[in-house]
């Protein structure tokens, strides 16, 4: 009879966990579900009182994006959707290309060489992060894109360094000794590695990222 309270407690605990899981999923997914449903509704269904979950779905809203209004439901003219799509692609590819082109040599220089004012440039990059959004008010859009790509490149550098640092701290003694055989450039608290070490660490880093995201499960990458 002594095990019964513990048994009941575990049932209760499982029920609490299940309720938490359901609450979390509803909180996260319901807006998506509702917007998906709304996008498939005709205008009359969208504003129906009370809101309906049962209706005849229509793809008019989607086709309107590409081929324009069919039934004159809205007053506005056809949005130039392909053009907007192209704009997004141009901006994202441009920003990524620019930040990589500027970020890789800069990261290499900061990691491999010692030179005067090196630390200053790190501080300035942090300032770039701070000012990012306050400055979006400035309407100089072109310059703004530059800001943005710079921000992300310095962001990537910082994050990579931090991740490597954490990872190296976590590695078991054996591999740590192996890594110690290769010279490390330690600069204050930041730990910066050569490309060779980067390759050693990269695999573990990928695996760890995948685990954190929980998408690939716990299977080690090979």
């Amino acid at each position, binding site marked *: 009879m002594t095990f019964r309270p513990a048994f009941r407690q575990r049932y209760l605990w499982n029920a609490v966990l299940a309720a938490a899981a359901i609450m979390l999923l509803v909180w996260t997914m319901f807006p998506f579900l509702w917007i998906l449903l709304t996008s498939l509704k005709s205008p009359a269904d969208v504003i129906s009182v009370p809101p309906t979950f049962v209706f005849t779905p229509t793809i008019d809203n989607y086709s309107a994006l590409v081929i324009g209004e069919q039934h004159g439901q809205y007053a506005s003219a056809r949005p130039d959707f392909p053009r907007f799509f192209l704009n997004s692609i141009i901006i994202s590819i441009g920003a990524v290309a620019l930040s990589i082109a500027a970020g890789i040599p800069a990261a290499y220089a900061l990691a491999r060489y010692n030179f005067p004012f090196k630390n200053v440039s790190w501080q300035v990059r942090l300032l770039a992060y701070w000012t990012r959004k306050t400055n979006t*008010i400035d309407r100089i859009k072109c310059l703004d894109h530059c800001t943005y790509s710079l921000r992300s490149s310095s962001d990537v550098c910082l994050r990579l360094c931090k991740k490597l640092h954490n990872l190296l701290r976590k590695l078991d003694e054996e591999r740590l000794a192996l890594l110690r055989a290769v010279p490390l450039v330690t600069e204050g608290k930041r730990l910066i590695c050569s490309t060779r070490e980067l390759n050693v660490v990269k695999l573990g880093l990928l695996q760890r990222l995948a685990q954190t995201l*929980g998408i690939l499960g716990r299977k080690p990458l090979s």
Partner: protein
Amino acid sequence: LLPYLLLAPALVLLAGMLYPFGLGLYYSLTSYWLQYPNRFRFVWFDNYVSLVSEPLFARAMQFTLGFTLVAVIVQVGLGLAVALFLHARIPGRNVIRALMLMPLMMPPVITALMWKIMMASTNGGILNYMLSFIGVDPINWFGSTQGAVVSVLIIDTWGNLPFVALVLLGGLQALPTEPYEAAQVDGASPVAMLRYLTLPLLSPFLVLVMTFRTMDSLRIFDVIYATTAGGPNDATTNLLFMAYQYSFQWYQMGKGMAQAVVLLLLVVIASYLLLRLWNRAAENAAQ
């Protein structure tokens, strides 16, 4: 010379960033008003002084600081709960983790519009409709001053909770296992382990995520712009939105820039203090 050559492209971009920043700083010291180009003068700190007697500024400051405080506490608290939950061994954990990340992929403006549709107070918005089943009277989400503040908080929390939970979950997974084994051998209760092991070990991550959230909450704009536009009765006007209104709706560039500079100072001070706290927390946790 080579390192400078390698840094050159980044420095050029940096100059492109610092130029508008410097320009804004300069404009904040002038009487730049788009409607009256003739009145352009260098007025030193007049714009800053006039902010003090501006009632909207006091309210915007109050909202900015209050919102940041509440948002950071709520989001880090809930995020910690979610992270602990996702760290526990539960069936379907990986699926829940992947689904939970979905709000991170949404642009904040789209998030805000999504919730705006759901929070419609007239004609039966879905949220009020669902609440009516558990006996809650229809809530005037964006129409009342308190309702608008709470709505913005809910939307911001929905969009940023995954980020907080993800960082803290990463922190939880990086914690050493030995202290927990030792605590188990000593017969510590789960609550005690949470209080005396997890929280101290996790403190660098907590402070880090608080830093990020503080910076972003101080300068929240997208959600406010897409839903309440600062209203009703300026209840959700924060410093950044006020600066936007001054600059681009009332064309008083000088005053707008002065407000932006004040906000920048606020963000820099807050993040500097939090980063110092973070360094200390990291040192303590490493010992």
